[in-house]
């Protein structure tokens, strides 16, 4: 019996490892391109034969990548905390009056173009990283709020009834029943929010937040396609890597 269990265990471990293969592969490609970009000079020369310089060198790609991840990470963490928090708050008996208001605000956040948020935020917050974090935060809130509301709403009323009838407190109901059951839907919302924000964060380069958007903006200004491709390539790989991590997490949940 133990032998059979061992084999099953090993096989399980193998599938576990295999399922992490896609995220790891994208991550590997990302690191490879970020570190090896100068070695691809030949290829970029072919894309952009007229420019003197074809590899973006004003900052290291790893530094840009790190700043990009940092901005998206901070904005997403704030959006997750605020989004899930407010969605939970308005589905409790005490906060139910605010449910329409919050879902409306979240929708408005989405319809507002991030460029407009930046344009409004710069006068108030100045140039740099802060306005882009605010813009990403507002922009990333909607999918999280909407999915958390959907996830909580999708829970069988009888499960809630039974939980209350058995003598669970509101907090126990939330932590032990509602959140675990809504988790896949909430996670899907976070996934959308984060991947969209990885792309949107590039706009930060226009207000002086240096990140992977820098080569793209510089490329547009100088008419250098190679710069644009380098920035876009890394942003794309980052988005794919993060997205496949979420995909992996969702499949288990």
């Amino acid at each position, binding site marked *: 019996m133990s032998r059979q269990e061992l084999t099953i265990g090993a096989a399980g471990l193998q599938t576990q490892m295999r399922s992490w293969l896609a995220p790891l592969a994208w991550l590997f490609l990302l690191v490879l391109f970020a570190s090896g970009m100068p070695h691809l000079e030949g290829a970029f020369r072919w894309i952009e034969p007229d420019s003197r310089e074809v590899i973006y060198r004003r900052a290291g790609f790893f530094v840009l990548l790190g700043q990009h991840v940092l901005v998206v990470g901070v904005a997403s963490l704030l959006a997750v905390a605020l989004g899930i928090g407010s969605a939970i708050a308005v589905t409790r008996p005490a906060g139910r009056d605010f449910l329409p208001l919050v879902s409306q605000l979240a929708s408005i956040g989405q319809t507002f173009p991030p460029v407009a948020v930046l344009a409004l935020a710069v006068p108030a917050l100045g140039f740099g990283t802060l306005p882009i974090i605010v813009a990403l935060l507002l922009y990333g809130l909607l999918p999280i709020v909407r999915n958390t509301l959907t996830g909580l709403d999708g829970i*069988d009323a009888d*499960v809630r009834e039974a*939980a209350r*009838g*058995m003598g*669970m407190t509101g907090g126990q109901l939330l932590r032990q029943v509602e959140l675990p059951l809504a988790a896949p839907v909430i996670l899907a919302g976070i996934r959308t929010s984060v991947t969209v924000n990885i792309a949107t964060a590039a706009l930060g380069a226009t207000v002086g937040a240096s990140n992977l958007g820098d080569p793209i903006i510089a490329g547009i200004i100088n008419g250098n396609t190679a710069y644009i491709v380098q920035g876009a390539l890394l942003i794309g790989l980052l988005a794919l890597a993060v997205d496949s991590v979420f995909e992996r997490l969702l499949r288990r949940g």
Partner: protein
Amino acid sequence: MIELFGVTKRFGGETAVDALSLRVEKGEVCVLVGTSGCGKSTTLRMINRLIEHDGGEIHLEGAPVRSFDEVTLRRRIGYVIQSTGLFPHWTVARNIGLVPRLLKWPRARIQERVEELMQLLGLPVREFAGKYPRQLSGGQAQRVGVARALAADPEILLMDEPFGALDPLTRQSLQKELQELQARLHKTVVFVTHDMDEALALADRLVVMRKGRIVQQGRPIDLLHDPADEFVESLLGGMDRGLKEAALTRVSERMLPLGPRLLASERIPYAAPLSQALSLMLWHRVERLTVVDDEDIPVGELSLRRLLGGKTS
């Protein structure tokens, strides 16, 4: 013991329960029956305060339910609902252990109790402990629901149409199991159903409700013999009442000791209801049955006249 004194509940302008008074003795199975919307479920849910009553008082063991913290109160009362309400992300064992865990029992004691209950409800531990609710049949899921309600050994059990969603065969076998459980556990049970056969089979006290009021209450047999009005009569089955009464009486109550005559060829267990004996007679076109005990040994006989209540054989 549960007592309701003039309990009233209004939803908006509508009165769902109207000055209802009821007393359920300790160890008694009280079944609330009535058409849908008669307030029977509302009455049940007011006992564990899932719905707060607007007027009157509800007492458990002499103390008003409002004097308890509602969470503490509910952990002391077993609650079973039609759709089971099992947590889909928890295993069977974890679902059953819910209330003991809320009550912070030590882990070993919870596991012991869960296994004991699974055995009691005919759910082999090895097979079912690790399963999830979606892997269970309707009957199995409701067994888990009953086990969960019994987990912390509550004095009181509230059951809201627990077998309503099951097929007739599963329903009957669960009713029988509930009767056997009750014979051992002696809980105070309030049971809501709109299935009159179920009500007659399970009730020590039958309470017929209509429009938020009690129309009649008493022993099932008394209600059958002497329904208060046409509503109760029709609810109890109208012209079928004779058969329903026969279903409540056991063969052993009417049988006579074995006589000198030859044994009748058809046999019936002594614990079977009279309705079954009548059915056998109709089917085989005989007027006499041999009554046998659990080991299929003849212990008496039952004639059609005795079955009908005649004095002589």
